[in-house]
């Protein structure tokens, strides 16, 4: 029996009834990855078969002893920016090509304690900077719906892996849309929780005031199950929120009704330059569907949306220029030391050869924005506009329960289409960046096709209202069929080793 297309819930049932084992689940997924990945999506940077089989055997022992933790024995994939003890963690960069962490990050550890089985580490844009996974220091990943197109990014490997049925869930990170946008482009669910909801301890930092870890899954219920395992306070992360974590599955209702739910449609997210007509049409029809479920719709304005991209491209590079200073060729990264070289030469050569073009571009932009004389004009100004963007949302949430709109202005684009034009690439995140700047939770759910490629509906909630976002997403999913569409790669058969 093929187990690789199942939901987490279905896998749990089979495990509970002893109709399969964690080891069989892990092996079927590993076989699939090993026989299909290199010739299709190239989602993986490292496959950890031995580690996975050991974790699966331990999960089977717990199952034998009557254990029934919700994720016990469930296979998963981590974006290669989450540290894993004893397993290479590259952040998609040549500068960390041989880096082997000495400690698990908090989320790696929590998932291991929950009994999940890690199959490997997924490809990504270098240091999570990008929207196509073409900035990976190793190779680009591809979209499971069309191998000539990008999977989105920066968590493109994780999104493609879930869309190719390499795992029922994978974790990504979202700084300006890096979970939601690849989720939309690969036809899977991608969820960025509230900033501070999930611990960042052991997450290799890009922009510390924006980075947040979240899941990719194929169903909303699975997303809720993973959130139950990863959300919550962590004393090791000073930005981690000390707020109670509800049972996210309890928020999901069997009956898809949105009676009494007020949804805001921001004017700035529709009829704008750059949005593909097919995407807009699919999203509008999805919103009509939400209305048919009982939701009350209202048009609103988020007037500072048009400053979102500019604000983000000051704040994120500024923070990255500080965070990436640690890769100096001395402590744990690529080190290029010619005989007779000075310490300064080591810094220059190691960074010069270790970092890719986009990472260098952002370090330079950020360093400039923070430099004395320009700090007030750029960085400080951006922080003030960030507050205005957050206030836009605060005002809307006085009246509405959630904001809905497109996740990405386009469907998956061909590889190479935007690599020569950074600004065109940045525009992918037009609708996801404001949410990130405001720290809000946002999900992308499959909501239709345009030219045969997936379109995502974005649902943005109030701070810490992940449950409300999941509830709306679930009602939509349960009354539509979009999430049941399978990508061409998902339909390919694996060869058993």
């Amino acid at each position, binding site marked *: 029996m093929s187990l690789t297309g199942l939901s987490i819930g279905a896998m749990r049932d089979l495990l509970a009834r002893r109709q399969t084992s964690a080891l069989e689940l892990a092996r079927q997924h590993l076989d699939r990855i090993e026989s299909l990945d290199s010739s299709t999506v190239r989602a993986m940077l490292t496959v950890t078969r031995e580690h996975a089989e050991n974790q699966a055997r331990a999960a089977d022992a717990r199952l034998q002893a009557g254990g029934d933790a919700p994720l016990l024995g469930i296979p998963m994939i981590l974006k290669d920016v989450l540290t894993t003890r004893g397993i290479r963690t590259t952040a998609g960069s040549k500068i960390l090509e041989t880096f082997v962490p000495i400690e698990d990050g908090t989320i790696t550890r929590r998932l291991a304690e929950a009994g999940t089985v890690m199959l490997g580490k997924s490809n990504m844009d270098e240091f999570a900077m990008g929207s196509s996974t073409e900035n990976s220091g190793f190779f680009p990943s591809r979209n499971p719906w069309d191998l000539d197109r990008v999977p989105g990014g920066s968590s493109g490997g994780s999104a493609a892996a879930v869309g190719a049925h390499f795992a029922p869930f994978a974790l990504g990170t979202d700084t300006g849309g890096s979970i939601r946008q690849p989720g939309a482009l690969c036809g899977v669910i991608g969820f960025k929780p509230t900033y501070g909801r999930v611990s960042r301890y052991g997450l290799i930092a890009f922009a510390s005031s924006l980075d947040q870890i979240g899941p990719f899954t194929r169903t909303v219920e699975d997303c809720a199950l993973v959130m139950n395992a990863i959300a919550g306070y962590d004393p090791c992360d*000073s930005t981690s929120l000390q707020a109670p974590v509800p049972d996210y599955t309890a928020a999901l209702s069997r009956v898809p009704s949105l009676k009494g739910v007020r949804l805001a449609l921001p004017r700035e997210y529709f009829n704008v330059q750059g949005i593909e007509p097919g995407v807009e049409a699919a999203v509008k029809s999805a919103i009509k569907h939400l209305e048919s479920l009982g939701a009350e719709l209202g048009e609103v304005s988020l007037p500072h949306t048009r400053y979102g991209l500019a604000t983000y491209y000051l704040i994120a590079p500024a923070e990255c220029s500080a965070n990436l200073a640690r890769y100096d060729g*001395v*402590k744990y*990264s690529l080190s290029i*030391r010619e005989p007779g070289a000075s310490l300064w030469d080591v810094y220059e050569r190691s960074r010069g050869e270790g970092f890719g073009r986009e990472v260098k571009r952002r370090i330079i932009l950020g360093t400039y924005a923070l430099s004395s004389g320009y700090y007030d004009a750029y960085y400080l100004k951006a922080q003030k506009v960030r507050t205005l963007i957050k206030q836009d949302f605060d005002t809307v949430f006085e009246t509405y329960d959630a904001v809905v709109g497109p996740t990405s202005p386009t469907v998956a684009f061909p590889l190479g289409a935007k690599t020569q034009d950074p600004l065109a690439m940045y525009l992918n995140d037009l609708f996801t960046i404001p949410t990130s700047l405001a720290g809000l939770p946002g999900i992308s759910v499959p909501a239709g096709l345009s030219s045969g490629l997936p379109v995502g509906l974005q649902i943005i909630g109030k701070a810490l209202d992940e449950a409300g976002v999941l509830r709306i997403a679930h009602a939509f999913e349960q009354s539509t069929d979009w999430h049941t569409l399978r990508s061409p790669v998902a339909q390919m058969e694996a060869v058993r080793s």
Partner: protein
Amino acid sequence: VIPLRNVMRDDTPRAAFPAEDILKNAPVSHDGQFMVPPVLE
């Protein structure tokens, strides 16, 4: 401006990593320390 004051945790010591672990990823180390090229002429 920000509706939050500094949040401080208790200053309780925790176990630190052994020096040999910290140095595992060092490109060059010597005698329990990171090695860098000479910085003084």
